């Protein structure tokens, strides 16, 4: 009974809307019955879109990388150490997702013009850190809390250096939070329109920059295909990142996951 109602709710509010998008992307504009491949072929005929996809991938990859570095180190410090000023830091680290992104971006824009980061991909990568890093720190902090400091001390006692401990113990055991961060960060980076427009100044063209003006077009088939493209990209990036993670030590077997999903 519970199962039926759960899947009914899911069907109505998630699957049907997404299913409609999929259906529309394969049918003629405005009709849901007349098959047409124009949406997908039309999409990839546009050079601008292919370029924007690459730009988004590169920017997203750097944003993810920075997030893992900042998130893991800060999450570890917050989870395993006691120090003065922790409460204030906690609040400060939540601030970037609480205060208006537009206010921060307006302010940062001035400085970026001065130091030459405005209108560059590097500037866009930096501004994309603002809405992502606080989440990553939170996720890694919870990851390190459930890992516990003792197991890292145990590795140290067996003679492992800090680097070896990181590779052999932290990376494999923090796999679930790493997966969450890779996925979430990439999706958030891909979703930024307004801050990319301000800092990128129209020179850095990400997918969102192409999508927005696209919506004015009445060709619903094309827009539907484009919308789905937004979901396919993080999925393929995620699979790519998974492949990379597997190259690291002690990753060959799937362990039983902890039940924390979002950490």
């Amino acid at each position, binding site marked *: 009974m519970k*199962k039926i*109602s*759960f899947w009914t*709710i899911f069907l109505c509010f*998630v699957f049907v*809307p*997404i299913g*409609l998008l999929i259906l*529309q992307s394969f049918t003629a504009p405005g009709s849901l019955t007349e098959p047409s491949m124009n949406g997908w072929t039309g999409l990839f005929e546009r050079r601008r879109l292919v370029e924007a996809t690459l730009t988004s991938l590169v920017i997203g990859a750097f944003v993810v990388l920075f997030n893992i*570095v*900042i998130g893991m*180190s*800060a999450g*570890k*410090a*917050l989870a395993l*150490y*006691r*120090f003065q000023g922790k409460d204030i*830091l906690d*609040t*400060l680290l939540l601030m*970037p*997702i*609480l*205060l*208006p*992104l*537009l*206010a*921060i971006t*307006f*302010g*940062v824009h*001035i*400085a970026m013009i001065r130091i030459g980061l405005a209108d560059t991909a590097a500037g866009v990568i930096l*501004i994309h*850190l*603002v809405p992502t*890093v606080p989440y990553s720190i939170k996720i890694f902090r919870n990851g390190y809390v459930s890992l516990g400091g003792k197991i890292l001390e145990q590795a140290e006692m067996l003679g492992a250096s800090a680097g070896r401990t990181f590779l052999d113990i932290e990376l494999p055991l923090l796999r679930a939070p790493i997966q969450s961060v890779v*996925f979430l960060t990439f*999706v958030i980076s*891909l*979703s930024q*329109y*307004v801050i990319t427009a*301000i800092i990128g100044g129209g020179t850095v063209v990400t997918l*969102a920059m192409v*999508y*927005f003006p696209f*919506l004015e077009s009445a060709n619903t088939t094309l827009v539907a295909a484009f*919308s789905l493209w*937004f*979901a396919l990209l*993080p*999925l393929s990036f995620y699979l790519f990142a998974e492949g990379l993670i597997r190259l690291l030590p002690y990753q060959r077997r799937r362990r039983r996951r902890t*039940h*924390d*999903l*979002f950490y």
Partner: protein
Amino acid sequence: MKSSGPLKPWLLLSPALLFLLLPLYGLGAAFWNSITDQGALSLKVYEELFRDEEFLSSLLYSVWIALAATVLSLFLGWFLTRMFASLLASTSGKLAAWLPMIFPHFVWAYLVLLLFREGGLISGLIPGDPSLAQDPEGIGIILTYIGKETPFVILMLLPVYLTRERHYDDLVETLGGSLFFRIRDAEWPWVAPVFIETGLIIFAFTFSAYEVPALVGATFPEMVSVLTYDWFYSGDWGERPLAFAAMVFSSVVISLIAWVAFFLINKKRRLLTEGL
């Protein structure tokens, strides 16, 4: 928890501290630009801002929309998590909850547009064919946010429900408590910190985000973010100080609410950790 070596945690925190410079500088610069007028300190911009009726009405409008979207998605998400915690923990349940997370907000907004605008797939079925997107009441915006934020609430609350001590339920029940008391005494104290924090994040986001209202909002009234963006990019740059002031004031509104909420959370947290 280690307490020796006071340098080590700060070393680990240095990348995060470096990162913090970015938003702190941004806010500082925005604030500075809002209180200077041709190089001199002045509150002229704020006087002008608060005389601007367009701004005042869009401020109220934003508060209303953000509040409605936040409260509705919070309670919907909480209800679904309570009901289906065990199902959501399974692999297929997890995927179901994650699925809407893949799509950017503006894609979800487009879906709402497709389904609810005049002649849309759903609104066309309703007698009178009302336009529920790009409508002055902001229903389209609220619908979009509910669709995107409810899964977020579920993903935030789920760990709480999966790691929660079930004994407290039994305890309240054996003491003769009804469902109301079970929720109030055995669930809420554990849920509250995450619930309030999640609510705060959603409120702050929906209050100041640009993308969704720009797509499914009406031309009038506008949400503060859209209005500010227009000011910022209005031809002669003359309205830029106003844009800065509007954003600084929005930050103040959110900070005040956040301050009250965190005061509540910290009080609760302390009780929970000390009481066990």
